[in-house]
């Protein structure tokens, strides 16, 4: 069993709100000692390795509720390896992946295989979502209990809209039978087709637009079905101010729902498309200033529970096409920390509350979705699992092809200065990533 000691750290634990100077001792897979100030137990701790975290923050590892790894199904070799490596390079220790792989994650065997391969890489923990319907066709239900047993933490329809409300109703009813959480992106099947957000910019550029209606109509439908079935839902990738308002009201009503928004909606707007920059071709599309402002406020007040990277590997040429034909998506695992810190700086939330959006709050969503009893040992508690991110909050780095570990280099944040440089990432007590130099 490895024993590791991290010293001279600034310990930030969003779950408790604590922010202290101190040290952490890790024994095997768990945190053995959390020492705030002088602690006699440290002198008895026989560490095999010591990490000096001078000038760095030690926080719980990041939990990313939306990251595509491209496997199974990618034509590019080694994608699972590279993307899980990118995750820990970004301080992400747990990630949830949607089922829109090729083949779709609708068979227990595929899920078992994926989890097995990921486990053997000893990088970030992988929590797959199972498909809600077979093949994501929106017709027949999947064997949710079997998929749960194989390791699916919830059931999702990724970005594929379910056209048939009867099917959606039945899927929610069935999931509610077992208390499974259904992860849905609110997007109307017919109004939601378009490559940009409907508005003056899309009109000026001649791009087909997705109106806010596509999100609000879908939300209203989902909430009605939730009231009827009692299903628990996690809403994915909220994008509009109107959508945020509906979620706020639904939560106030007491509906069992959580939701997330991506780093793109947090920072960018439609005008950033500029001269048809395909890096901005994203799903959901970038909306307007007031939508971004609403998302930022909602993430601060907890209406939006978690910030996600929405990591979607897009390879070389797939963006070298006219805007509407370019493949949507962007790399994001390594940008989640910086995107959160940038938002935190702007909203002056303080480091602990800022990090909560990418650690304790998504961890709570994940735990509830897994059906795991909410452990009272979490975050930086003694006895909690040692999933940690050590990063220099005062350093920044420039986003470009040479600084990204992911095989996919397309991001709308290219050439941005991202705050927060990860020094090392620990998963289950093991050093899963260490920065060079």
């Amino acid at each position, binding site marked *: 069993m490895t024993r590791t000691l991290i010293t001279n750290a600034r310990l930030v634990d969003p779950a408790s709100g604590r922010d202290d100077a101190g040290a952490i001792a890790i024994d095997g897979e768990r945190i053995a000692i959390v020492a705030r100030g002088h602690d006699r137990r440290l002198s008895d701790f026989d560490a095999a390795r010591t990490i000096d975290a001078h000038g760095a923050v030690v926080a719980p590892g990041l939990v990313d509720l939306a990251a595509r790894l491209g496997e199974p199904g990618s034509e590019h070799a080694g994608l699972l390896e590279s993307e899980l490596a990118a995750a820990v390079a970004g301080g992400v220790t747990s990630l949830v992946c949607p089922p829109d792989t090729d083949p779709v994650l609708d068979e227990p065997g595929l899920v078992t295989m994926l989890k097995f391969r990921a486990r053997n890489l000893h990088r970030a923990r992988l929590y797959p979502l199972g498909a809600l319907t077979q093949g994501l066709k929106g017709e027949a239900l999947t064997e949710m209990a079997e998929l749960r047993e194989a390791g699916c933490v919830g059931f999702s329809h990724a970005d594929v809209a379910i056209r048939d409300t009867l099917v959606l109703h039945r899927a929610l009813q069935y999931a509610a039978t077992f208390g499974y959480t259904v992860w849905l992106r609110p997007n109307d099947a017919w109004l939601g087709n378009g490559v940009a957000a*409907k*508005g*003056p910019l899309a*009109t*000026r*550029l*001649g*791009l087909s637009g997705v109106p806010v209606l596509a999100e609000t109509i879908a939300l209203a439908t989902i909430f009605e079905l939730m009231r009827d079935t009692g299903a628990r839902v996690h809403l994915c990738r909220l994008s509009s101010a109107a959508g945020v308002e509906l979620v706020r009201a639904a939560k106030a009503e007491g509906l069992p729902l959580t939701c997330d928004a991506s780093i793109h909606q947090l920072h960018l707007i439609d005008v950033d498309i*500029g*001269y*048809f*920059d*395909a*890096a901005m071709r994203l799903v959901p599309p970038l909306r307007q200033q007031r939508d971004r402002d609403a998302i930022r406020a909602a993430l601060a007040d907890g209406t939006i529970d978690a910030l996600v990277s929405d990591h979607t590997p897009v390879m070389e*040429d797939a963006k*070298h*096409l*006219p*805007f*509407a*034909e370019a493949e949507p998506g962007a790399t994001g695992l390594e940008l989640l920390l910086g995107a959160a810190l940038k938002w935190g700086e702007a909203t002056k939330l303080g480091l602990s509350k800022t990090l909560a959006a990418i650690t304790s709050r998504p961890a709570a969503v994940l735990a509830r979705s897994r059906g795991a009893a909410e452990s009272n040992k979490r975050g930086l508690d003694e006895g909690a699992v040692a999933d940690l991110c050590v990063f220099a909050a005062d350093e920044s780095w420039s986003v470009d092809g040479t600084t990204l570990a992911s095989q996919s280099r397309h991001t709308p944040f290219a050439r941005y200065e991202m705050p927060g440089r990860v020094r090392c990432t620990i998963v289950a007590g093991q050093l899963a990533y260490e920065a060079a130099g």
Partner: protein
Amino acid sequence: MFGRRNPQLNANDELIHLLSIEGLPVATLQHILDTAGTFLSVNERDVKKVPLLRGKSVFNLFFENSTRTRTTFEIAAKRLSADVINLDIARSSTAKGESLLDTIANLSAMHADMFVVRHSESGAPYLIAQHCAPHVHVVNAGDGRHSHPTQGLLDMYTIRHYKHDFTQLTVAIVGDIVHSRVARSDIHALTTLGVPEIRAVGPKTLVPGDLKEMGVRVCHDMAEGVRDADVIVMLRLQNERMSGAMLPSAGEYFKTFGLDGAKLALAKPDAIVMHPGPINRGVEIDSAVVDGNQSVILPQVTFGIAVRMAVMSIIAGNSP
């Protein structure tokens, strides 16, 4: 992609590509219109050729078919003494799966000097301008719904020819504006040239409210839209609009938003009627109006060749 600098202009603010009218200084537009005037007189000579583009290769890359537009660009290029090669990409290599950029790279290797590009997707010419060799110039012959700058320019030339002063005009653009690249180019040009009243006229399904952010007044009533107008630009109505549930029928469209003699009488007595073509007689415009004495539709075609000669010669003379 291009940072924030307008990709059509070089560091000296000279035009090196024509991708859109948006963002072009008014002096640039006027330079193009003035130069077109010179070429109009060239087109009336016995020898309709000048050597400005001699030895240059102009490739017409039409990813979307249009014999009319392609022909006018071909005539314009040949009158500038350029060698013209026509590529109907819709039927050739990309049908076999060659990527857009590979096609461009192959053509650049054949020493192309200028690409005239028409594509069904908005923004395609920007992608091409970003990836072609530095000395190659790109002219947008129409990209998706976004822009048809040479049409916008020839429409301005036409208005200037008959009305002279842009700053006193009321211009009505009627029809399927939401899907029209011609309408967008006209609107940008009219606002840049200082036209005080620009009206976008049509049913709500074809004329969305957020058009007013482009500087136009949205009218959902034809009579109100054309009343006292100096210029009426009629746009073609495509059949897809009926099948896409935007309109019930061509007949109802003609009754409510078509231009016939009665509606034309609401405009100023010396109002001119324009249309980018091809015309759907009896759908957006009455035959009698097309053939009437207020129609300047045929002169538009003549002006179109001179304007394209002006655009091609101006950009070919500027280095990146």
